[in-house]
């Protein structure tokens, strides 16, 4: 009985399938809200030059409370100004750029290191697994912020060093997740088939196993971007972040933290901005998990 080739539906292109996958998120209300928050901030970051009412580093009226009109009466400091008279709204808008570039980039780097480690540990097993697992346990045994503080305080603070520190601290966690997924997938029939065909192990790991582990990894990546945003923020908050004067949310909180109780408007709005962005990624991750568990 020959199967008619015509009957087998053609596989849709990868792009179309990816788009359909993204569209699935609309089944989860929580996920849609999360995605909307993220899209909002991405748009803000892209259009920062257009929508920011003032240049972010320009000094105007110091310590204006929210809704103070400008001196010439043509504009308004919607969220007030800081001690140096810079418009807080404009600084928040421009600050979104840094965090939205650095956080996904750092997450990507962590994955680029963690995935090969996890694939090797899970697929090769043996001493490779033992060594990698032990090393990642060692790094994960550090309280995370202690690790960041020591690394950044020692090697200095710059965007590149933050990237390195995030990669170093996050790759072990990613490795652990990938390893767990691979341990489950390596006994599937298609992996045995590939092994029988004599495919090299790198090909089996990258082409056969990795794409089938993508579901949980995408959810994890969303959560992780959220964590990295917190990390960048907290480093800025502790005075170990990106150098001034360009706005950076964590740094904005740090600059005026001693006045947070007397002039809260200078710190409250950056706090809300960063929390909302993290919330967006967390909600999206929750929505994705919900949708992926459904079918």
């Amino acid at each position, binding site marked *: 009985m020959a199967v008619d080739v015509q009957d087998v539906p053609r596989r849709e292109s990868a792009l179309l399938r990816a788009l359909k996958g993204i569209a699935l998120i609309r089944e989860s209300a929580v996920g849609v809200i999360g995605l909307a928050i993220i899209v909002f901030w991405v748009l803000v970051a892209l259009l920062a030059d257009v929508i920011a009412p003032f240049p972010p580093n320009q000094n105007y009226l110091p310590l204006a409370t929210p809704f103070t009109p400008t001196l010439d009466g043509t504009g308004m400091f919607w969220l007030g100004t800081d001690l140096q008279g810079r418009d807080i709204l404009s600084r928040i808008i421009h600050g979104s750029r840094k965090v939205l570039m650095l956080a996904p980039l750092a997450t990507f780097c962590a994955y680029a290191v963690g995935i090969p480690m996890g694939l090797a540990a899970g697929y090769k097993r043996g001493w490779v697994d033992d060594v990698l697992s032990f090393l990642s346990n*060692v790094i994960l045994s550090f309280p995370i912020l*202690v690790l960041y503080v020591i690394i950044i305080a020692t090697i200095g603070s710059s965007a590149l060093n933050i990237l390195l520190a995030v990669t170093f601290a996050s790759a072990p966690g990613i490795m652990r997740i990938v390893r767990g997924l691979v341990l489950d997938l390596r006994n599937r029939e298609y992996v045995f088939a590939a092994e029988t065909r004599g495919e090299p192990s790198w090909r089996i790991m990258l082409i056969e196993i990795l794409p089938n582990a993508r579901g949980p990894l995408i959810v994890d990546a969303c959560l992780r971007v959220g964590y990295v945003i917190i990390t960048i923020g*907290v480093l800025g908050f502790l005075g170990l972040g990106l150098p001034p004067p360009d706005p950076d949310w964590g740094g904005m909180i740090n600059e005026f933290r001693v006045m*947070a109780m007397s002039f809260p408007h200078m710190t409250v709005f950056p706090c809300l901005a960063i929390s909302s962005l993290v919330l967006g990624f967390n909600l999206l991750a929750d929505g994705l998990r919900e949708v992926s568990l459904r079918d």
Partner: protein
Amino acid sequence: MLIFVIRRIGTMALTMLVVSILLFLLLELQPGNVAIKVLGPYSSEEQRTLWLEANGYFEPVYQRYLNWLLNFVTGDFGDSVRFKVPVGEILWPRLANTGILAVATLAVVVPISLLLGVLAGMREGSKLDRTISVGSIITTSIPEFASAPLLGAIFVFWLGWLPGTSGMIDGFDLTQLILPVMVLALYDFGYVTRMTRASMAEVMMTHYIRTAVLKGLPYRVVIMKHALRNALIAPFTVIMLQINWLLSGVIVVEFFFAYKGFGALLLEASLNQDIFMIEACAMVAVFVAVATQTLADLGYTYLNPRIRFS
């Protein structure tokens, strides 16, 4: 069981050893940098050489590491560059202060999150479950460094109920502990709640719960006598691991509220390049983290007979 305990403690010792090597490589590999940190940037080349000579820094690296490790294990952490006194004198009182903060936080987090987690997991998908789940996502999305100024603005600036700093200058003051604990608890309880919920929901799906319900036991008895005992094993581990997170959180909270604790000390030491203080703080932090992880593992094994007897 005994073999398991010994193996876990062995792993813990090995982890600490590797951590100490990493720290040593990061901070002390280049003796020149150590001399600059200890003697300051304006010391002369000659002074540095003399200091390095006197403190044995010209010996080979492994020899230096072994000496360093020996001193460390015997409790000699060296002198703080900044305070000019032995590191221990500053470190231990600060650690005790952080202990107070951590115990107070856990005393708030554990009952609340267990209760909410059980309520949510009891009837998965119910309105209460969704509310608690989304609520816990929201609170874990507000990092400590954001909730500290936010809560400060509310309770200190607008309401004026609480003091804005927790320096404890005039002796111990409970009101100064409220805001730091609130900030830490707000961030931590969401995670424990979600884990408890997941564990509870899983237990509720099991056959023995269905049997208990079907044989007509009151729902309260099913939950209290049958579900809870198994559902609370996983949260136990999560709570123990939470101490690791708490150690990160105290850095932020103690820094913001000027609380004289371990986290603030670690941060000050790092910012001031107080090298021996950094080393001691880092080792203590990792020790606390690894020790609680080991305890969590042992406790989990002890509580779960399926693992204990296999």
